[in-house]
């Protein structure tokens, strides 16, 4: 009996272990292999499951609907990082050896893992796509040729939020004398907007109070009592994971209006608002992409990947903020491959060739429409100098059931952001002895 029970326990453990390993699409010859450093378990598993679910759903769509990219089918392998830096590096090392052409491009989906890979990527000639996270000054591609903080970076988000608040107050001039509190995750990620917000405070004349929340942020009583005492006009929420829902709940508890709270794009998904329940109603968040299922690409995924091919990841996640973001991230990768194919030929491409494709991405409104993304994303055009390509942000408001658009695509203080990016990148280049410049095409 004892032995039987131990065998049962062992078998269960093995099943669980297998469950923790994410789905794998076997690598096939003559395919464009994509290495995915994902996470579906652990503290941020819910976020990862939505993002990487959308990512893989889009790859499946390209294979099923289009037969791949110009006839080159996509294959991929997902390695579980659990949002852990050491495991992220381990996955990267494993995936880079998987195919003759390498893993195409890596989406670390973690600022910590991005930092851990930044000096490896140039040596291995593997581009890193950090869509809305990572190191902000990597937007300067002359210093960081292998890193692509696509679309908008944290400083775009911070200045965009200030612009949004200014609009709500009746113009930037009305911000003078106002009080804004930044409630942030006490980590490298959370501290990222502080320099640019301090610069904005000096420029626009508002008062800024920064309040850190220790990891993981599941208890915020003292922070919110400080907010209650400070009486800010607005609270900017720079949260991640459980911190966001707890902030919304504690705001309700302290009687702070959620209509005066604006989160960044990692604190603005259904995962945060559903967990917070009614406390989230009225809360604003910046977004890199809109939520919703009305886009042609989403309809294609539902009809082709989910219904016809039965290869969908999880139907409940379709159309959510992070699932749509995963779809967009996969589309960037696919379009970079397509762009690179025009130069290097319709065959599986190396990371070096794909890097050129990313740097020359031009996704204008017409192109986005033809891809079925319509207004889900703003137009995007990259260059050696600008590895972001857009700098735009859009705001959504949680109405208690779903995210509703609360603004058009807008830009923050692009002049200030660019100036700070170039200064910071130049400092990094000096420290590391990097000679800034564009890589040859």
């Amino acid at each position: 009996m004892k032995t039987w029970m131990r065998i049962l326990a062992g078998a269960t453990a093995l099943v669980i272990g297998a469950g923790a390993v994410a789905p794998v699409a076997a690598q096939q010859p003559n395919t464009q292999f994509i290495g995915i450093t994902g996470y579906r378990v652990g503290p941020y598993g819910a976020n990862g499951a939505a993002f990487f679910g959308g990512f893989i759903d889009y790859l499946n769509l390209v294979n099923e609907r289009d037969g791949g990219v110009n006839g080159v089918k996509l294959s991929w392998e997902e390695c579980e990082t659990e949002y852990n830096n050491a495991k992220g590096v381990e996955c990267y090392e494993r995936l880079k050896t998987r195919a003759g052409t390498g893993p195409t491009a890596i989406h670390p989906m973690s600022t910590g893992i991005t930092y851990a890979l930044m000096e490896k990527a140039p040596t291995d000639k593997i581009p890193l796509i950090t869509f809305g996270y990572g190191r902000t000054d990597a937007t300067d591609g002359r210093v960081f040729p292998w890193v692509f903080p696509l679309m908008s970076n944290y400083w775009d988000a911070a200045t965009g939020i200030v612009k949004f608040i200014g609009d709500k107050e009746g113009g930037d001039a009305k911000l003078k004398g106002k009080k804004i509190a930044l409630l942030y995750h006490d980590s490298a990620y959370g501290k990222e907007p502080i320099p640019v917000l301090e610069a904005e405070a000096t420029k626009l004349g508002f008062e800024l109070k920064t309040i850190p929340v220790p990891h993981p942020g599941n208890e915020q009583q003292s922070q919110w009592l400080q907010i209650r005492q400070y009486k800010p006009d607005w609270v900017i929420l720079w949260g991640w994971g459980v911190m966001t829902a707890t902030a919304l709940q504690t705001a309700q508890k302290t009687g702070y209006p959620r209509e005066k709270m604006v989160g960044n794009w990692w604190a603005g998904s259904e995962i945060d608002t559903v967990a917070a329940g009614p406390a989230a109603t009225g809360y604003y968040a910046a977004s890199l992409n809109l939520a919703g299922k009305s886009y042609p690409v989403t309809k294609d995924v539902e009809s082709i990947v989910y219904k016809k091919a039965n290869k969908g990841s999880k139907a409940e996640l379709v159309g959510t903020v992070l699932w749509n973001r995963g779809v967009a991230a996969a589309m960037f990768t696919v379009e970079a491959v397509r762009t690179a194919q025009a130069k290097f030929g319709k065959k599986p491409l190396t990371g070096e060739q794909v890097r050129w494709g990313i740097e020359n991405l031009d996704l204008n409104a017409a192109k986005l429409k033809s891809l079925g993304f319509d207004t889900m994303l703003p137009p995007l055009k990259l260059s050696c100098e600008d590895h972001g390509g857009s700098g735009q942000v859009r705001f959504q408001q949680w109405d208690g059931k779903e995210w509703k658009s609360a603004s058009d695509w807008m830009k923050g203080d692009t002049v200030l952001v660019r100036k700070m990016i170039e200064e910071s990148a130049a400092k990094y280049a000096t420290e590391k002895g990097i000679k800034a410049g564009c890589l040859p095409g």
Partner: protein
Amino acid sequence: MQFFFEVLIGGLLAGVMYSLVALGFVLIYKASGVFNFAQGAMVFFAALTFVGVQEKTGLPFWAVLPITLAVMVLLGILTERIVLRPLVNQPQITLFMATIGLAFFIEGLAQLIWGTEVRRLDLGIQDEPIAVMMDNFDMMVSSFDVTAAVVAGVLVAVLAVFFNKTRIGRALRAVADDHQAALAVGIPLKQIWAIVWSVAGFVALVAGLLWGARNGVQFALTFVALKALPVLILGGFESILGAIVGGLIIGAAEKLAEVYLGPMVGGGIEGWFAYMLALLFLLVRPEGLFGERRIDRV
């Protein structure tokens, strides 16, 4: 002064929430001398099972509660049978290591069965300021936190009656005092352990429901165990009263420190302040405020 009392009361109420988690640790330590590293995982498992069953069956709260409790009792019994029984008479560090393994197993099992999505848990208790306190004293006191404190009080009373007035409770205390002597007088040690793990499962369920209603049911519930550790160090690993008093002291101290000392050093100190306070207590009183002083013959 009004603000000081607001912070103090908020801290005391937050401390009660820590105590709820600490109670689970105390129960198991009292009866077996094992520091159960898996208590946080049990809180997560209990809350996730509760919302999972509710989601799948659509049953009301009062119907799901006994089902989840049964699952937690089963988990407790299986833990005793599969993990602890084969390790009887092994050094305590071995048992501790076993609970580390158990923690990862339970976390994985919970996610495997119910998935990783974040879920809302609505207990029907409003997490809003109590109007009377706001109107008369301009003081923010959360109705949810007060309810949680009442629940914790009831739980402690029930556990006190269970330990002091029932036969099983007396047997538990005997086992806690001396395993060998308890065995010699015919107390079934294995049964007692199974009961203790089941009761710890019940406490984990209560803590999981309250923390889950507060933050959403998600993996981060496993981290609430980190909040309980300084409470245990301060209150003592073997005392239910210590878990409550320790929770109150830690909760109040960390909130006051964050609000009054935090701004001087850039804030964000409450995470480590509680541990520093516990460490200071450890230096002065290693067994904690209510822990039993151990005197070994050498």
